[in-house]
């Protein structure tokens, strides 16, 4: 019989908990959501020995079991709910050898829940450099557990950790501190009311404002009587509890840990001197951002061109080799063009997540939060808004989720509302194809116009986000307490494995999740474009023949296809909104792309590709097709005025159903996504309209 051990991985942020998770599970991990909420749930499988498997849950990083955010509440809900199918057989608390004292606070809390608890001391490779030595047998005795000393960087100690996990039944479950000694009166009363219950668990239920839906309801409602104590009284007990825990920890570490300060070299202060300098700090941050954006544009254009032309030749060879018919047309014109529209994003998404995960892993992101807090507060944001605003350049969905560690509700709401203004990667292909079409060659002080235009669009996105935030902060009347506590972690060289797994995980999620939508829309578009009502569509060939008897067969076919498209379902739809978008410089085909873009922006290029390939029978790249589109007077459809107007429309309009869905989830109301949809789209329309009218 193979054994199955359920393991919960816990730890403070910045302890390398995720590295431990990655080292144990590799690519077996899957990311989902906890039921009903959008908190990311990371699970993975780990082989413990030849006939035992571990099922790991990587719980969100938390400093303590006293929760202050939605992410953290997941931790306590799982640990207090014995009936949950994920309730762990063993809890593994990951700590960083350099921050052992603070990290042990969480360990003592988890152990006091009387769950078998293992201690992992990570970053053992740093001990020599920092002059740290540990007396492990003594620590194990005093903390009453087993300790695995590991280094995920050097891949050390993981086998020992697996053995300890297998032996979890031998772990003592006695608590580290006796909670009644904190406030005898209060806890004696509690014990009298609930005999035979763990006092610490009761205490957590009383003090934590989390959703205990799945926990014994009766117990909770009884326990709420104890909430009648003023919260300041409860908080004082919490403070006493913290003091008590630190007394215990200090006593343990005094005997079990020695630090030779002379051996320590200080990378932190040397790097901080530059990276958070009042001038250099900002300059470096700005240069770093610009480098990232330039790199993304340049580096991904090579694989993207390759992908684009590969899909064209794939489609062409299928068309030549498969029997003619509806299915072949659906495959080549609908599905393959649609798939091409997904795959072409992969390089950019991968590069963006590569850079973002390096910034986070290295500890630099916290410095940016520190630098930007004061400035962003002026716009009603928070230093922590930097992370959503920067990760918004990849995708607004994870960015909106990243607002969760902003404790202040008003600042968090504003960050959620303005994040979709930042230039997400779905806008990038729209921009890059339009820039390539309408922005002339040439350079300005060594920076080429095309690159400058792209940079300008990114800055515009950030600028609009700030302006909108400022307006919202003046108009929204919400009062909430503002807490800002940011850990400034040690600088670390990012682990390649962690960066790699992040890039892989995010890219894969994009391809599967966004891919489904894009593919479905592509097929729907193809159907709508290939069929139409009435005699105009069905008798297209005859009508054209009668009207243009002088044309040869080839020209006749082109004319017929164009006429058919115009009278297909989608043509009718596009035509019906044409009056609305003509003042912006667009035709009805762009109108179709605009409508489908409200599902997701990245559909734009694919939609045009599908429409144009239904229209013509020869295969060509999307760019060449767009360049050959002309207006009634023979001038190119995509010129400077219409191109810029279109880019600005995409810069400001709220065209992403997934973002609206996530905003609804995170704000728990339809009000905010509706505000976003209409506010942003009306703004986009007005700006695009005035731009075209001025430039044309």
């Amino acid at each position, binding site marked *: 019989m193979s054994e199955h051990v359920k393991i919960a991985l816990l730890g403070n942020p910045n302890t390398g908990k995720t590295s431990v998770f990655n080292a144990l599970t590799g690519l077996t991990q899957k990311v989902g959501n906890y039921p009903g909420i959008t908190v990311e749930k990371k699970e993975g499988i780990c082989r413990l020995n030849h006939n035992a498997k571990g099922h790991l849950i990587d719980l969100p990083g938390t400093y303590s079991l006293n929760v202050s955010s939605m992410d953290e509440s997941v931790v306590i809900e799982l640990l207090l709910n014995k009936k949950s199918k994920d309730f762990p057989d063993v809890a593994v608390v990951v700590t960083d050898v350099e921050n052992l004292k603070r990290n042990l606070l969480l360990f003592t809390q988890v152990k006091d829940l009387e769950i078998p608890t293992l201690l992992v001391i990570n970053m053992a490779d740093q001990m020599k450099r920092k002059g740290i030595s540990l007396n492990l047998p003594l620590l194990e005795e005093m903390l009453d557990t087993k300790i695995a000393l590991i280094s995920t960087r050097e891949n050390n100690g993981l086998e020992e950790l697996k053995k300890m996990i297998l032996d979890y039944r031998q772990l003592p479950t006695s608590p580290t501190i006796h909670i009644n000694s904190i406030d005898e009166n209060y806890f004696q009363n509690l014990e009298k009311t609930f005999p035979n219950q763990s006092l610490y668990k009761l205490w957590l239920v009383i003090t934590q404002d989390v959703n205990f839906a799945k926990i014994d309801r009766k117990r909770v409602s009884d326990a709420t009587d104890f909430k009648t104590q003023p919260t300041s009284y409860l908080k004082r007990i919490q403070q006493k509890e*913290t003091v008590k825990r630190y007394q215990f920890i200090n006593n343990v570490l005094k005997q079990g840990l020695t630090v030779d300060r002379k051996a320590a070299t200080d990378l932190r202060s040397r790097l901080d001197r530059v990276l958070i300098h009042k001038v250099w700090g900002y300059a470096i941050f700005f240069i770093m951002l610009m480098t990232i954006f330039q790199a993304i544009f340049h580096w991904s254009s090579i694989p993207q061109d390759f992908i684009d032309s590969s899909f064209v030749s794939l489609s062409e060879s299928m068309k030549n080799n498969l029997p003619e018919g509806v299915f072949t047309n659906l495959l080549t014109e609908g599905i393959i063009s649609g798939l091409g529209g997904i795959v072409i994003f992969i390089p950019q998404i991968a590069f963006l997540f590569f850079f973002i995960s390096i910034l986070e892993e290295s500890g630099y992101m916290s410095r940016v939060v520190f630098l930007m807090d004061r400035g962003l507060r002026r716009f009603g944001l928070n230093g922590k808004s930097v992370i959503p605003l920067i990760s918004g350049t990849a995708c607004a969905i994870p960015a909106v989720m990243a607002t969760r560690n902003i404790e202040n509700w008003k600042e968090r709401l504003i960050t959620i509302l303005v994040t979709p203004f930042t230039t997400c990667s779905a806008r990038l292909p729209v921009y890059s194809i339009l820039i390539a079409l309408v922005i002339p060659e040439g350079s300005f002080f060594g920076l080429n116009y095309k690159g400058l235009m792209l940079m300008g669009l990114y800055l515009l996105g950030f600028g609009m986000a700030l302006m909108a935030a400022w307006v919202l902060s003046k108009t929204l009347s919400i009062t909430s307490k503002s807490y*800002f506590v940011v850990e*400034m972690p040690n600088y670390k060289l990012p682990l390649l494995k962690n960066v790699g797994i992040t890039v892989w995980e995010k890219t894969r999620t994009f391809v599967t999740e966004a891919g489904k939508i894009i593919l479905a829309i592509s097929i729907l578009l193809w159907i709508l474009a290939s069929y139409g009502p009435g005699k105009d569509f069905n008798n297209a060939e005859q009508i054209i023949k009668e009207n243009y008897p002088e044309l040869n067969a080839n020209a006749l076919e082109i004319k017929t296809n164009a006429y058919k498209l115009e009278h297909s379902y989608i043509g009718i739809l596009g035509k019906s909104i044409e009056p609305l978008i003509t003042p912006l410089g667009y035709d009805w085909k762009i109108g179709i792309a605009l409508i489908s873009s409200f599902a997701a922006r990245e559909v734009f290029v694919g939609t045009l590709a599908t429409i144009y390939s239904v229209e013509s029978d020869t295969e060509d790249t999307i760019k060449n097709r767009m360049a050959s589109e002309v207006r009634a007077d023979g001038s190119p459809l995509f010129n400077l005025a219409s191109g810029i107007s279109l880019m600005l429309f995409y810069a400001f309009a709220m065209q992403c159903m997934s973002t609206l869905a996530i905003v609804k989830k995170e704000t728990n109301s339809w009000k905010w996504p509706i505000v976003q949809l209409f506010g942003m789209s009306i703004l986009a329309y007005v700006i695009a309209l005035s731009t075209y009218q001025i430039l044309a």
Partner: protein
Amino acid sequence: MIPLDQLLRGEKARIETIKTDKLPLKLIEMGCLPGNSITLIQKAPFNDPLYLKIDESHLAIRKETAKNIFVSLIE
């Protein structure tokens, strides 16, 4: 005894009292407790937020929070 926000860059002090009700529990749990040492490492431009080393934790808090922590200088 002075409020923490009046500490100068590089100065080291000991925490004397804290206004428990005005501080987030998270900060207390990260070591902001009477008796612990505190060093002001750096101030962001416009003197806010403050980058501190409290006990052995490195963290940043805003000036308005720092006003609720009272310290005395250690030479």
